């Protein structure tokens, strides 16, 4: 199917007129028609006729196309405002909210000629790791529909795995791109804080939120990042650091690259099959000439408590605007999980508790920054698991708030520090479920991570496999 091709292959076919933007749209909508009822990845699907109209418009101007994303259909986690297209953050509080403006990332993709076809399911407001905390029905894992697709961006990840779009835009606050990428067997990039504008991304926790691509491969992620990265006058926290041609730097050899293997990430609590798959990936990197060394990254265990002070505090503030006055729907419509996080955060910020919780967590944040900086001074990347376990059955996480939090153990510290991290498939468990790993890098070292990922994917088959739902 066309959706199996890489972005660059599709761009070549379009340039040579072997295929048209309409062909891709048509195939994708066919697949969506067959598959989405099984996995429920979409909250809002753009009307097919409208998508085709835009595709026809693109087809007429394709000679002028500069970006390889030109004419390609993409989806976004429903956490981004899109002018004229309903945006819910998976919460009934915004059930009928049609934004009057577009997120910078959406605008940049439209300018590049890509075509938005849908807004994807997620845990409401980003609150969750399983896309069960949604008001629009759970998203099912395309490899086993009795299991979670991960979260909070389960929708976009499941859509990429099922070939319902060429690429997707996710949003990662504590693992929301990487966790579902791992559980759906695809590739997701959590960018450095400030690499991509957050303007128009519905805030979960502003100091942790990051906007990044989700796609089949590291190479595809590189092409998307080239378009969406960069300083935005509308986001004071976006960085002036220049956007490099990530796709141009993929081919370089990774010989001599130094990769850290932190023992704290592989202690008990980590699923045996996941450990085995990542140890195997370590060998692959070594065989490609990288040097992998064992290191210690203490404090990992404090990541979850620190995250669950900072993120709820900020979310209690960010969700204050949904006061029932301007968006029509009452606050009662917040889910239990969201209410829990609002309450926790409100408590942590209250006078008398602020010093003991929020301020202390900020201090811990500085220590995390030091620890990661220490290691990354000597290493180009850190190799780690994404989640402690395989995709859970529905209810497993939702019924156990603590287990739900622990699902974030390996991902949250990366957001606390603001580092980039690439999650990609590195094998399959005995039950046929995908296994993911992550490569964590220095600030603004996306090109290194993408090159490591690309070299790995050139020698491994995992990213090419189709999930059961497509069979």
């Amino acid at each position, binding site marked *: 199917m066309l959706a199996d091709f890489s972005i660059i292959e599709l761009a070549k076919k379009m340039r040579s007129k072997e295929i048209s933007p309409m062909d891709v749209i048509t195939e994708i909508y066919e697949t969506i028609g067959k598959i989405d009822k099984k996995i429920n990845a979409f909250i809002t699907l753009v009307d097919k006729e409208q998508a085709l109209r835009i595709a026809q418009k693109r087809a007429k101007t394709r000679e002028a196309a500069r970006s390889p994303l030109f004419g390609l259909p993409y989806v976004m986690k429903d956490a*981004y*405002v899109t002018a004229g297209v309903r*945006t819910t*953050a998976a919460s009934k509080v*915004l059930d009928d*909210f049609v*934004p*009057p*403006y577009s*997120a910078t990332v959406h605008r940049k993709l439209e300018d590049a000629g890509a075509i938005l076809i849908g807004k994807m399911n997620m845990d409401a407001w980003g609150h969750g790791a399983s896309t069960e905390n949604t008001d629009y029905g759970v998203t099912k894992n395309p490899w086993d529909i009795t299991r979670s697709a991960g979260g909070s961006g389960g929708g976009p990840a499941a859509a990429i795995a099922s070939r319902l779009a060429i690429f997707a835009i996710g949003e990662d606050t504590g693992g929301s791109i990487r966790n579902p990428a791992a559980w759906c067997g695809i590739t997701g990039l959590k960018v450095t804080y400030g690499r991509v504008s*957050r*303007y*128009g*991304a*519905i*805030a979960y*926790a*502003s*100091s942790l939120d990051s906007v990044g691509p989700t796609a089949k491969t590291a190479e595809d992620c590189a092409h998307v990042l080239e378009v969406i990265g960069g300083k935005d*006058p*509308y*986001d*004071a*926290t976006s960085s002036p650091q220049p956007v490099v041609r990530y796709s141009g730097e993929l081919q370089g050899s990774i010989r001599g690259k130094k990769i850290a293997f932190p023992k704290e990430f592989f202690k008990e609590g980590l699923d045996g099959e996941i450990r085995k798959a990542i140890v195997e990936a370590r060998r692959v990197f070594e065989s490609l000439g990288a040097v992998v060394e064992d290191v210690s990254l203490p404090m990992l265990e404090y990541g979850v408590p620190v995250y669950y002070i900072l993120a709820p*505090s*900020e979310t*209690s*503030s960010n*969700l*204050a*605007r949904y*006061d029932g*006055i*301007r968006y029509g729907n009452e606050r009662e419509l917040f889910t239990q999980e969201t209410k829990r996080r609002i309450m926790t955060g*409100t408590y942590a*910020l*209250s*006078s008398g508790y*602020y010093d003991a919780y*929020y301020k202390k967590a900020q201090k811990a944040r500085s220590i995390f920054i030091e620890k990661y900086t220490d290691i990354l001074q000597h290493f180009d990347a850190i190799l780690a698991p994404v989640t402690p376990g395989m995709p859970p059955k529905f209810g497993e996480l939702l019924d156990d708030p603590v287990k739900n939090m622990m699902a974030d153990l390996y991902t949250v510290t990366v957001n606390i520090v603001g580092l980039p991290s690439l999650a990609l498939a590195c094998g399959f468990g005995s039950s046929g479920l995908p296994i993911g790993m992550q490569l964590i890098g220095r600030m603004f070292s996306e090109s290194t991570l993408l090159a490591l990922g690309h070299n790995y994917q050139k020698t491994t088959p995992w990213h090419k496999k189709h999930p059961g739902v497509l069979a």
Partner: protein
Amino acid sequence: MNTYEPIIGLEIHVELKTKSKMFCGCPASHFGKKPNTQTCPVCLGLPGALPVSNKKAIEWTIMLGLALEGNIAEISKFDRKHYFYPDLPKGYQISQYDQPLCRGGTIGDIRIHRVHLEEDTGKLIHTNNTTLVDFNRSGVPLVEIVTEPDIHSTEQAREFLKKLHQTVRYLGISDADMEKGSMRLEPNISVRKTGEKGLPSYKVEVKNINSFRFVEKAIHFEIERQMTLLNNGEKPKQETRGWSEGKGITISQRSKEEAADYRYFPEPDIPPMRFSRHQISDVRRQIPELPDAKRQRFIKTYSLSEYDANLLTETRALADFFEECVKIGKVPAKKLANWIINKKPDMENVLPAALVKSILEAGNVISISDDVIKQILSDNPKAVEDYKKGKQQALMFLVGAVMRQMKGKGSAEEIKKMLLSKLQ
């Protein structure tokens, strides 16, 4: 009966007249505009919108801090202040908590506690059966100036406010128009027994004051109210009260127990600010000559009386107008000063050159000062008495007296007009 001493602190909000709002590109000037025509995703607090600071507003706040002789922070930041109110679209106001742009400073004997920058809220418009929200004002830059509780009388409060108002206008950073709400005052008032040291254990904050006159009335009312309570053996409650101009009293709005917990925390959407000495001295260079310095200079350079210099420096526009007239060089400064003070030329429409020309054309006709008129009136009580009884000759007698005093200069018509205005 005990005697009491009032302890008063002031909190003043001043809207800056920057071109755009504090965190977005919408126009900051909102008075009289059609509701909700100057809004965008940022100042409406729409999902996903982010604030980007207005550099000018930060510079101007620093400038005010410097003009008040305060200390400018090397590192400052914005914080979120949370409370629910329909005119606050994000559920929090971007303000400054523990690292304001400026700490300290003085106006005369009164110490400034801090000067910080924040965003204004929208406005509620109450009609018969509905309340509407206008967000044109939402996000307009607002400077908050807080004094130490150094004020002990309504007169001192008035002096302070007049001086602050004048300084803000001189800096050209705000219209500071009380009626339009671009300057808003909140006194907090308590009283202690005369001779006692230390602050009372309570204070009463008064809101809804929109003129200098009302602030005096409200302070006066509160002092009396609190003294009466204390004399009856009651301690006044710590609370927020509102000034009701209609009734001429303050009314309890919110007690201490109901005080909000604002859950301040650093605004994550705006990186902290750092200012180098170089940046601060750059701002310092932009500070124009302030009223005190200008007055002293006028006295020295133009040999004006303190009284005249004071009048001429009341606003920067008037002082500039005067100096432009002086620069033309054809009329002595002192004569110009008298002319401008007495004739109050319409500065909007009369150019300095035109004014000088008309003075020259008037030739020997010199301006008649108020002082002379007053003096003649008090020297001739009998003539005044007679005029009031209806004797028109008495008026002519007074005109003659003024002319003699002015050694034959000045027009009889002009003198008659001025006398009449005093005799009414």
